[in-house]
Every structure is written in structure tokens, then in C-alpha cells.
């Protein structure tokens, strides 16, 4: 595991590169696109474990943080969704350079799945496999989901939307501009340019079915329901994390098949 900064120095991104196991090395690399907010905190360990397992299977793996999140440069108040889409492209480029391979796959969790899909409509990126893990299917549904959750658990600490239309969710803001930008992205209307897609969910839902219906004609598309904890929005008082082992196992199996 090598932590490092990459990209332009003024927009440096933090990443962790997992070296492939020398015995089983493949000429393939995987980029993991994280989600955002408390979900990102809760999923960090799962992403690390997934990266380590895939590296043991011979993949070059890169985890990274978008601008204004994690250890990457900038503050969330100053970044846009466009920046995050650029960051994914920068990370793909970095991974190709570091690994020396042209074959790159992407795994995106929740918001990361939405952003990864939006990135892969660019044919030139030449992404082979795309895994959408409990994906947010549209910016609009994400916004609604967060607001419902805030209203459900409304406390004195909750100030859902401030005077600038920034949505605050458990200490992580989404600016008006980000919300507007996200509202233009709808997975059902996207056609990612990839060879294979795995849409994997930990619980069946109306949104999951909507995407399944919209993409069912795509030959590249596969859907899998793997029962596992997927309550990403739950936040406890002590910073507990989620490690949905059945999903991690299913993704690894699909990637190595």
C-alpha cells in the first residue's frame, strides 16, 4: 500500500496504490471511486479491504479522494461536480501510468457509481469493466434521499438546507451548485461505454429496479442482488463503520471471473 499525492500540485489528489501480488499478477488495473459524506467515512475500511483483496488477485488497484474530500487538496465549498468528474479522469490516467497497463476497470460505490458512470460515457477513456455498487441512480433521487433521512432523524444539530441552499448532512455539505449539477445526472439516461457492467445491490429497491429496467437491453449489463448491510446513511454516535463482506466477495469473484 503506497499513499501518495498525484495530479496538478494546485489540485493534488490523495491516493493509495495497492501493488498486485507478484505471483498472480494480471495486466489489469482497477480504480475505486468512493462515495461522499459520512458514507465515505463508513466505507473507507470496506474500500481498503476490497482493494487489498483485488491486489492479492493480481490487479493494480488505486483508491483516491476527490478534491475537497479526504486528504485531497481544497475545501468542499470550492469544488464542483465537474471537478470530481475531472478527478476520476486524472485518477484513470495516473493508474495507467503507475501500473503500466492500458486495461482499466472501475468500481464505484453509491455517489461514486453515479460519477463513474457519467465519466465512462467518454469512449476515449476505454474502460473495460464497470461495477456499480449500491449506486445512486440520479442526483435528484440522492438529494431526496438525504433530505428524507435528515427529516427522519431531525435533531437540534440538523440544519438541512441553509440560506445558500447548501444541504448539510451529518457534517458534510453539498452546495447549491453541486446539487444542481448532480440533478442533471440520471443513470437511466446514460450509456456507459464499457465492455461489462455489474450493477450490484445489497437490498432490492424501486430505484434499483428502475435502473435494471432501463439498462436491461444493454448486452454488457448484469444485475446482482447480494443480501448485505447497505444502510449507508445510518450514522451512529461513535463513528462505527460498515464492512459488507458478502458484497466485497461478490465483486471480487465477478472481477476475477
Amino acid at each position, binding site marked *: 500500500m503506497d499513499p501518495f499525492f498525484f495530479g496538478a500540485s494546485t489540485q493534488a489528489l490523495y491516493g493509495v496504490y495497492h501493488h498486485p501480488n507478484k505471483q498472480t499478477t494480471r495486466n489489469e488495473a482497477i480504480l475505486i471511486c468512493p462515495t461522499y459524506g459520512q458514507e465515505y467515512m463508513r466505507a473507507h475500511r470496506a474500500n481498503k479491504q476490497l482493494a487489498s483483496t483485488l491486489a492479492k488477485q493480481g490487479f493494480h488497484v488505486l483508491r483516491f479522494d476527490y478534491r475537497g474530500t479526504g*486528504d485531497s487538496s481544497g475545501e468542499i465549498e470550492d469544488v464542483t461536480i465537474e471537478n470530481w468528474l475531472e478527478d476520476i479522469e486524472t485518477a484513470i490516467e495516473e493508474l495507467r501510468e503507475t501500473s503500466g497497463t492500458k486495461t482499466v476497470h472501475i468500481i464505484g460505490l453509491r455517489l461514486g457509481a453515479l460519477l463513474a458512470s457519467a465519466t465512462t460515457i467518454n469512449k476515449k477513456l476505454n474502460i473495460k469493466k464497470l461495477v456499480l455498487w449500491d449506486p445512486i441512480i440520479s442526483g435528484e433521487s440522492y438529494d431526496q434521499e438525504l433530505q428524507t433521512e435528515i427529516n427522519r432523524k431531525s435533531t437540534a444539530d440538523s440544519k438541512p438546507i441553509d440560506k445558500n441552499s447548501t444541504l448539510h448532512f*451529518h*457534517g458534510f455539505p453539498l452546495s447549491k451548485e453541486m446539487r444542481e449539477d448532480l440533478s442533471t445526472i440520471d443513470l437511466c439516461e446514460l450509456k456507459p461505454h464499457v465492455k461489462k457492467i455489474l450493477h450490484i445491490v445489497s437490498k432490492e429497491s424501486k430505484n434499483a429496479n428502475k435502473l435494471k429496467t432501463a439498462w436491461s437491453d444493454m448486452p454488457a449489463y448484469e444485475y446482482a442482488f447480494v443480501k448485505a448491510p447497505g444502510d449507508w446513511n445510518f450514522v451512529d*454516535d461513535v463513528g462505527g463503520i*460498515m464492512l459488507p463482506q458478502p458484497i466485497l466477495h461478490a465483486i471480487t469473484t465477478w472481477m476475477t471471473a
Partner: protein
Amino acid sequence: MREIAVKIGQPTPLAGIITQPKNFDASKPAVVILNSGLMHHIGTCRLSVKLARQLADNGLLSIRFDFSGLGDSAPRRTTNSYRESTIEELKEVLDHLQKTKGINKFICYGLCSGAHASYEFSLIDQRVIAIAQIDPYCYRTWKWYLNHYGPKLLKLEVWLRFFTRHFNKEQKTKGFSETIEADNFIMPNFPQEYPDRNEVAKGLKTLVDRGINIYCIFTGGQSEVFNYQSQFRDSFSEINFNQLLTDEYYPEMNHIITHPDSQKIVRDNICSWISHITNN
């Protein structure tokens, strides 16, 4: 300001980020930012990242890193207890900064388990000149009991609930953590049992005798053990802290400090406290 990703120690290094101010001065203390529970080194709601950058703006170098097995650090094979490992690994981190940056004085900062580790480590490493802790060890006093139970005893519904439960043997509803598989959901499970009060009193006395500055922030999220401003001093009333202790209580803050205003209070207060104790 420059941020540098580092790997410290062998054969299984610890991952960390050094935030170095523009005008770095090795004679100033460095701030060592510790993990809180299972959260990785960015801290709750990115508090550690923002604190590190604000410290750099104030001319101080800091490091935020992950103990082995947490965040971006791989687990180490060891028979050490969690407490022993944290102390050993903290020593490695300070040695690294001393060797590579020439820094000899350190301030340890942490929230919850990070606060406990900063206290434990400061007892044994003379390079630590101050500790900043959020929700550190604290003990209930008679006034805590009065604040906690007093208002409840005056409420009729509390008595009704007590009798209902007592006579009807009301079934307890399962909580969230009891309803899902333990393998998939991890709560911080470090040995968080508080040490004996007298042991901590003895430790604090040692720190005061050494002239270690202590900054404590208590949040409303720790109301099960802390519920009024001067409780820390009351629970260690035999210790004369002189001017070495700064203690603050924010009942409106939750334990993982999610509110942006609360985060700003924490960052600003830590920076001004450091500035005060170092006459910066």
C-alpha cells in the same frame, strides 16, 4: 503549505500525511493528530485535515497518521495490546519527525480513543509538552448524578415507565447494532474501559509536575459521564492544575462534532490554545 504522504516504520509502515507550513521552524512543536476510534486519519467530518491546514497557516507542522490496522496502515503482526501498540507506534512517529525534521517538542491531539492515547503516551515520552483532548477520561461526581437524575425524578412519565417495566416485564426492543451481523458492521471495540480514577489522577499529577499543558474539550455527546463545566476539575479535586489546564464544555456539540460551527470552534480554540502555551 505543503502536504506530504509518508510511510513510517518497517516492515509494515504506518501511513500518514505531514502538513508543513510555508515558513517551517523546527524549534516550534509539531502537532501529532491521532485516530478517533475506527475513523481513518482525516478525522470526523474531515476535522483532522482542516485542523492540520489551519495549524500550518499558524506556522506549525503536523502529522496525521493511522495506527496499524486502521485507515491506510496495514495491520502488524504483534502480540502487543492495543495500548502497547499505540504507544510504540506513536514513538516511531515522533522519532521519524525528530530524525527527518529536527523537531524535538510535540503536542498530541485526539478525540475519544485518540484523547486517551495522547494522555497515555504523554506519561512516558518526555518530548510531549502538551496534550489536547476531546472527550478524554473523566469520572462521575455527585453533581453529575444530581444533574443527570434530578430532573428525571420530578417527571411523572419516568415513574410510570419504571412501574410499567417493573411489573409488566416489558420486552426490550432490539437496537440497530443487535439486528445486523457483527461481521458486517464494526463499532469501535478498543479496550475503552476507563482506568481506575486514582490511576488517572496519579497520571495527571505526573503531567502537572512535568509542566505539561492540558487542554480538554467535553461535548454533550458524552453526557453519560460528563454533564457540567467544572466536572473534570471536580473529579480530580486533589490536583492543583495551576494554569496548566484549560477545560471547556460544549453541551450542544455531539461526540463526532458534525456541526460546521462546532468544528470551527474546535479548530480555532485548539490553534489559539497552542499559540497561548507556546507564546507564538
